[in-house]
């Protein structure tokens, strides 16, 4: 295991309805700089909750999350500063429908990093160029296909220069033929050394790009391994069952 620890999750719990529903029930894990951590598991296993807890879109019931050494679950921590360093990509893209693609990408750097407009736009166009969408800069999200929207969502997050990118089932809402274009962008990103945490059902992606695979069920981590070992020699019976259904 190489690279220093970027995110350290300790005994994280998320309970609903006063403890009747345990979305997360004591999760411990680490994300290292430069690695691609892939979280898989059945629906309702808590994998999205875990990912959304990492930037506090879900407030955990107990436990702690250390990001760059700061406990972000502490109410005194200014979470907004830390969120700027954690890019997030959602299943449903969540582009701002009333803004052009360019505006979608420049609003955060301009307002939060106080980047001058010309610089923010130049960077945005460079990023769009990287994902092959520079000709779409002045379109609105509704004029783009699902795959294009998700690529824009990825570069919108990148425009803030994050230290880690969180992906919440980025290809689940896409037509099958658009999945590839989004995964390609993610692969490229991984190759450049971006730290990534990816919740996905794309086993091919997990196998090919993941540095480590985590299997979750019932709000706990069942198994954690390198992709080769994980898919070839799953240790727990639960993992075997799951893999037999999805592979």
């Amino acid at each position, binding site marked *: 295991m190489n690279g220093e620890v970027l995110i350290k999750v300790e005994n994280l719990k998320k309970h609903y309805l006063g403890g009747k529903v345990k979305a997360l029930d004591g999760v411990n894990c680490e994300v290292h700089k430069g690695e691609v951590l892939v979280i898989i598991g059945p629906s309702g296993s808590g994998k999205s909750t875990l990912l959304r807890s990492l*930037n506090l*879109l879900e*407030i955990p*019931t107990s436990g702690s999350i250390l990001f760059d050494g700061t406990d972000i679950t502490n*109410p005194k921590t200014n979470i*907004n*500063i830390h*969120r*700027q360093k*954690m*890019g*997030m990509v*959602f299943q*449903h893209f*969540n*582009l*701002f*429908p*009333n*803004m*052009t693609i360019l505006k979608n990408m420049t*609003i*955060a750097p301009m*307002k*939060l990093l106080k980047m001058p407009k010309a610089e923010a736009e130049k960077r945005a166009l460079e990023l769009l160029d990287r994902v092959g969408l520079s000709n779409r800069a002045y379109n*609105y999200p*509704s004029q783009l296909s699902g795959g294009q929207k998700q690529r824009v969502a990825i570069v*919108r*997050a990148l425009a*803030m220069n994050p230290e880690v990118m969180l992906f919440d089932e980025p290809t689940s809402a896409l037509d099958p033929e658009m999945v590839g274009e989004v995964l390609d962008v993610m692969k490229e990103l991984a190759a450049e050394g971006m730290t990534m945490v990816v919740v996905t059902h794309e086993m091919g992606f997990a196998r090919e790009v993941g540095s480590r695979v985590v299997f979750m069920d019932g709000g706990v981590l069942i198994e954690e391994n390198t992709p080769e070992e994980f898919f070839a020699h799953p240790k727990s019976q639960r993992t075997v069952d799951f893999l037999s259904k999805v592979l």
Partner: protein
Amino acid sequence: MAEFFASIQKKFILCFVDDGFWKWLVQGFKNSLVITFFAVIIGFLLGVVLATVRSSYDKNEESLRLRKGIGYYLLRFFNGLCKVYITVIRGVPVVVQLMIWYFVILVSQKNGVIVAVVAFGFNSAAYVAEIFRGGIMSIDGGQFEAGRSLGFNYVQTMIYIIIPQVIKSVLPTLLNEVIALLKETSVAGYVGIMDLTKAGDLIRGRTFEAFMPLIAVAIIYLITVIVLTKVFGIFERRLRKSER
């Protein structure tokens, strides 16, 4: 037939021209517009604030409670305050509110138009607040999350991401409120303000001629509403560009 037109003409001259009564209509119309204009501004600004507080509480109650900060108790307090305000304002007829402002609260203010602006503005705010709250609650939660995940704080997310989308979606309802407000100002005469309706009524009292002045007043209101609808329509179409 000629006789009929002659009598119409005579009445017209009697009601509007002879003693310069048309000036009353102009003055009254001006007052109605001034009251409506400033009341809309007050109502809009205060309404947005009320709606933001109410929806912030509704949307974030759980996460704030978990974080237990002072913010939770503050927001809870202001949310309660807003609720009471909206309930009271919506539960009391606007004429009664206007009279309370004029005869009780702002009794030293001699300018009736200012009192009316305050009364109608604060009244409208409650309705605008509910319109806006509905608008905010109807925006997909993913928009908030996208804003927050980029690092915007709650207020910034509201200002930069949510409110612009809300304005677009509530514009037709908001226009309705402006039109309703314009017509509601017709009760301003209750506290001696000469608005358009009062002007028409005064002419009626002076000339003992009801048809002419009241129809004139009705036509002026109608034309104003039609013009407002057209202007808002143009505005709306501009904002909708992004949806095509």
